[in-house]
């Protein structure tokens, strides 16, 4: 066959019988995948289904144990990320691959900086960065800004611009929109559709079904390291796809809400009065009763995260007051916040830095927040520790090869369970959650929703920030929508609708919306 014939008959990229094992765990088994130019190919699957391994093999990060890859019909072996990049494969990783101390322009050009006389040509680099940012629709980001000073959503846009700057033929996006604002997602989608019409092959990995429905031409579902089905987008219902992913029937994602009625005369567990901080939080007042789940909604970066940090004693110089059980509580540090009778817990946004000590074991991570409860006179009571940990691992169904493996070796969803379990070991009465389901799979999400409800029924007061509107609608008794550091709207019960949430997130006149809580 001539080269032209090969190109006509075989896809741009093909994976044949690829397997990868980590120790005893089969991450990928006999995987097949065809990637066509000019197509957006969605990869679906729970965490631990083998998607990440698949991408890492394509990106040259890990080498497969068996099988082979074909690029343009030629066998391709990538010994390093640089080799894959040179072959035209670019990745936007879920675990951000940006270098925090370097500038945006430095990062965008990092894989292949423009050089003159052996030195990096900063003017050319700046031009490349500006063009890439413009292509990604992120002109608002200054090329000289340090990446570490940018919020998560901006960093993710830089990551996308960086991938575009390498002019790839195959672009892989791994949960690339998980931290983006709705406006950015729309821009990125437009960019991706443009790339598709330019003839690029795109692999799109996401847990968000509506994104896949909007973008994908082809879908492949992975489960337990195998590709279980490939089909044209739109030929299966969401329910069918989810069933393929989790291998069991998918129903009742959200547990039913209990009818909640506060005991008359009893003070709310947590109450905020005119809370303010700098110019980022203004005049926030709300209360959370026993057994209540109060959501925080709105666009990203409107003060939701700061509000949780303020409640948890991380911010200095807050104004207004916080009352617990009707008593004023001046909380000056996380250590004070978690101490009984306040018993607060904060599940942080970034489990890798604020939630876990990745190289330490599951056991150690689980006991950290509860050391004072399991120690007597400064010495850890191993028996008690063991028992508490066992209870937690069982309660949350944490899947781990053992308690003594580093927590970094667990899948994202299981890591998040460890973060939550670590705080549950203290039996908290007030639980603050900062977007806890970001980048975790449907199955684990579902378990978390049920857990939240159980905790609320057991009497906890829960404040739950989520960037996912479906979660706020499904889980919360009430939702406070924040805009520019203020609570602009409070939605309740059936008034919590996607329409109302979006309208108030954008701070559109409530009167036009009709449903007023």
């Amino acid at each position, binding site marked *: 066959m001539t080269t032209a014939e090969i190109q006509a008959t075989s896809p741009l990229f093909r994976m044949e019988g690829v397997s990868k094992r980590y120790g005893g765990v089969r991450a990928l088994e006999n995987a097949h995948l065809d990637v066509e130019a000019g197509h957006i190919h969605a990869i679906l699957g729970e965490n631990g289904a083998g998607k990440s391994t698949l991408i890492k093999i394509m990106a040259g990060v890990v080498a497969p144990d068996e099988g082979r890859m074909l690029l343009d019909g030629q066998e391709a072996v990538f010994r390093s990320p640089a080799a894959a990049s040179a072959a035209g494969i670019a990745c936007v990783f879920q675990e951000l*691959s940006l270098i925090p101390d370097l500038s945006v322009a430095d990062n965008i050009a990092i894989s292949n900086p423009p050089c003159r006389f052996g030195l990096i040509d900063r003017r050319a680099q700046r031009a490349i960065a500006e063009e890439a940012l413009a292509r990604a629709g992120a002109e608002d980001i200054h090329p000289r800004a340090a990446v570490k000073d940018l919020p998560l959503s901006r960093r993710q846009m830089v990551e996308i611009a960086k991938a575009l700057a390498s002019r790839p033929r195959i672009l892989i996006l791994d949960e690339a929109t998980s931290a983006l604002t709705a406006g950015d997602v729309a821009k990125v989608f437009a960019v991706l559709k443009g790339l598709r019409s330019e003839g690029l092959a795109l692999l799109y990995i996401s847990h968000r079904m509506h994104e896949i429905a909007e973008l994908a031409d082809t879908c492949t579902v992975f489960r337990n390291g195998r590709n279980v089905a490939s089909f044209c987008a739109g030929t299966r219902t969401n329910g069918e796809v989810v069933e393929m992913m989790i291998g069991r029937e998918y129903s009742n994602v959200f547990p039913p809400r209990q009818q909640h009625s506060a005991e008359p005369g009893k003070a709310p567990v947590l109450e905020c009065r005119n809370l303010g901080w700098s110019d980022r939080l203004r005049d926030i007042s709300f209360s959370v009763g026993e057994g209540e789940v109060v959501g925080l909604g709105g666009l990203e970066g409107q003060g939701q995260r700061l509000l949780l940090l303020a409640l948890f004693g991380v911010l200095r110089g807050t104004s207004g007051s916080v009352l617990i059980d009707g008593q004023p509580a001046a909380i000056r540090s996380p250590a004070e916040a978690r101490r009984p009778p306040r018993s607060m817990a904060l599940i942080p946004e970034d489990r890798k830095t604020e939630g876990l000590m990745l190289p330490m074991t599951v056991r150690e991570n689980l006991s950290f927040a509860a050391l004072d409860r399991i120690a007597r006179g400064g010495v850890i009571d191993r028996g008690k520790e063991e028992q508490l940990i066992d209870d937690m691992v069982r309660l949350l169904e944490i899947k781990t090869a053992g308690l003594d493996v580093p927590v970094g070796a667990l899948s994202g969803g299981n890591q998040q369970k460890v973060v939550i379990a670590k705080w549950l070991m203290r039996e908290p009465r007030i639980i603050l959650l900062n977007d806890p389901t970001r980048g975790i799979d449907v199955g684990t999400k579902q378990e978390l929703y049920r857990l939240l409800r159980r905790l609320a029924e057991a009497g906890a007061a829960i404040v739950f920030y989520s960037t996912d509107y479906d979660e706020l609608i499904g889980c919360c008794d009430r939702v406070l929508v924040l805009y520019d550091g203020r609570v602009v709207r409070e939605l309740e019960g059936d008034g919590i609708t996607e329409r109302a949430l979006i309208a108030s997130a954008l701070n559109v006149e409530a009167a036009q919306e009709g449903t007023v809580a």
Partner: protein
Amino acid sequence: MSEWRYWLNEQRGTLTGLVIFLVMFTVYVANHPAGFTANVVHTAANKGVLLAFVAMAQALVVITAGIDLSVGMILVLTNCLASWIVVGGVMPTSLGVAAVLATGTLCGAINGMLVIYGRLQPIVATIATGAVYFGLALLLRPFPGGSVNEDLADALTGRLFGVVPSSLVALAAVVLLVWLPFKRSVAGRAAYAAGSSEPAAFMSGVPIRRGKFAAYLLGGLLAGMGGLFLTFFTYTGEAAYASGSAYTLWSIAAVVLGGVSLYGGRGSAVGAIFGAFAARTTGDMLFAFDVDPLWQPLLQGIVLMIAVSIGSLALLRVRNRLDWFQ
């Protein structure tokens, strides 16, 4: 306007180092009996330049999130070597200088090999190589002695046009010829990237090994330059263990004063130079105040502590406690 702000943000560490140095040097000069004269500046420059070379060497390695505890011993070794071979006419002297610098570079390269290819912890690897380098120095010069081409020594430690210390000019030339090209090269970018986030650098296909190796190698070269200048100042070679250790430790203080983050990825060798001059001034200041020698080490430590605290003043303004840990 906004470009200016980004520049300021990039240079914050280096500028902090400059400010600390200027403040301390002003206090020193104001209390010096002779005041701000060419002589006082000349002496201060010559003392500062030695530590400046070693601090630049340390900065290069610290930027990769490593540390080099052998820099002081490379200085001692190259000093001892120079006292043997940087002698005679133009030709032998030039060859001698080249051999001394090559030795420093080789020492750096050995450190780099052990850390990068041997995968040893930088702190342990360089303690070991430092001991080896000192051992070699001792074999070269069991007793202090030797000599150096005095014409060259005087030219490089004297004054240009009667006012500018030529050691400072040499230091500036090294910044222009070694540091700036490194910083703007792909290897330099890789060194910063590896120091800031090695996994992210790996994922981005950055030549991490080349970057780190270049940092250790150039660190050896710079420490070797320090050794050469030490010989020019003293006209002799001496395998002084205490002096080598002191240079190593003070180089770490100097990079911190100069705004180089010990966590890697942030700072510049220029900042380390300011840090070195500031660190040197802490000692000189006590002379200017005519402090009892018995009290000097204690007071110098306190002055250093205050100087390092100036760099951390910004932490007091932090309103989000999580920023403390960044």
